[in-house]
């Protein structure tokens, strides 16, 4: 049985207690996007400032409320994508979901580990790997991925 330490790594609690990039950005030019977790009512609000010329995430600010996992994941995500190109950000999203071993509803051609490797190949998750322990607590996966799904939606809307 996985213990609490697997879930609540020190770095996660640190991001929870001192979230990075908390705040707002003027809309526009920034784009605002919100995500909900219907299970627990967690909310993530992202302000995304994407430079259309360089296709780069110039700035990110986060707001919202929720459990330590969802809030820490949001904070870590904001730190990870700030300054990255949109393509890199999207690759991070895929890599993070692979880390969370997210299966979509599809029943054919499900991931078999090779997929996971492929997604993770060449992507440096850094601190984000601390969230890997969440996989052992299936209910919490949605907490961890909320910020990432919201980011994806935001990128889709600005793209």
């Amino acid at each position: 049985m996985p213990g609490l330490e697997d879930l609540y790594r020190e770095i996660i609690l640190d991001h929870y207690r001192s979230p990075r990039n908390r705040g707002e950005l003027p809309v526009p030019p920034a784009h605002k996007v919100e995500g909900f977790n219907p299970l627990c009512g967690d909310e993530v609000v992202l302000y995304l400032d994407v430079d259309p010329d360089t296709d780069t995430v110039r700035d990110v600010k986060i707001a919202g409320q929720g459990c330590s996992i969802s809030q820490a994941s949001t904070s870590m995500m904001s730190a990870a994508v700030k300054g990255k190109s949109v393509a890199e950000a999207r690759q991070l999203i895929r890599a993070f979901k692979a880390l969370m071993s997210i299966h979509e509803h599809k029943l054919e051609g499900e991931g078999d580990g090779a997929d996971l490797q492929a997604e993770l190949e060449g992507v440096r998750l850094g601190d984000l790997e601390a969230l890997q322990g969440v996989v052992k607590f299936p209910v919490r996966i949605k907490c961890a991925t909320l910020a990432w799904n919201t980011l994806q939606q935001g990128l889709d809307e600005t793209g």
Partner: protein
Amino acid sequence: MTYLDVARIKEDFPILRREVHGHRLVYLDSASSSQKPIAVLDAMDQMYRTSYANVHRGVYTIAEEATAAYENARTKVARFVNAPSTAELVFTRNATEAINLVAYTWARANLREGDAIVLTHLEHHANVVPWHMLAAERGVEVRWIPMTPDYELDLSNLDALLDGAKLLGVSAMSNVLGTMPPVRQLVDAAHAVGALALVDACQYVPHNVTDVQAWDADFVAFSAHKLLGPTGIGALWGREALLDAMPPFLGGGEMIRDVRLDGFTPNELPWKFEAGTQPIAEAVGFGAAVDYLSALGMDAVRAHEKQLTAYALNALLERFPRTLHIYGPLDVERRGGAVSFLFDEIHAHDVSQVLDEDGVCVRAGHHCAKPLMRVLGVPATTRASFYVYNDETDVDVLVESLAKAEKFFLG
């Protein structure tokens, strides 16, 4: 050739060890509801004894286990009918609710006065009454594909019937006659005129390899209790794009993403259609049932039932060549294992009563298909139906007992 080891299978069904009136139980009413193997009963009992909790709600271990078991069951059932995605597999109360769900949501959102729905004379009330209700409410027209004298669908007038239709509803296997209509052909014909196709697969799924994609259907309904699973649960499979566009059905917990004082946002599929506490243990039993059937192999199940049905048809016709009439096709390639019959001069009810004295359970009545009974011109039939736990000895007991009934009433 034997396809199933029925003697061994019988041992998995505790109720078959029971005696009735001093006779071993010969259960020939599986078309109404099937018996349950220990594997199904134990799966449910074990969940309640070790990891029961409400699903999708708790963070704690047994809630996680229960949620995983529930969703795992969904995956099993979805695979069993070859659904492309678990998002398309909605657990319902039974097949009847599944069809009503389509009638209340898709149909009420899309059908207007003057639109037509095409059904067949073979339909069970579950695929008739929801459409009568809609017809009365909306001024929708219900049209009927008739039956040929040899108990098949009469498709000679199909194009005219489908003209202007928005929905075709067809049973993949008649619970009275055993008839198996050409589902794919009917679905194609419906699609050709822009209509959707709903397949009532309540009798089909338990006895055949089912492939909702090969049918190319839009909605497929079935029940767990007819395929060795528990009561209290059924399933609706539907195309994701359709389900997504449909308004929700029942409102309440689980089916929402957000609720405010002034409105709500529905949840994702499939939960959008699963309001309130789900049939949790029942889903687990449903999953165990399809596991049990998959282990036997649905090809083998179908082959076994064809063989047994042929044996039964033969035995009945040989023993009662003049007094007994069989309602349904005689070619087992074109029919399932529900065999309806009638003695000329004895009411179905009375036959069933006499059979009960010998421990033989058959169904007597209109089988929830009164429109069909009117077409057949009889108020009731006696129906024997077969499943994986039946063998030729069961048929022999049936035939002997029928002979007694004949003697008792006709002297």
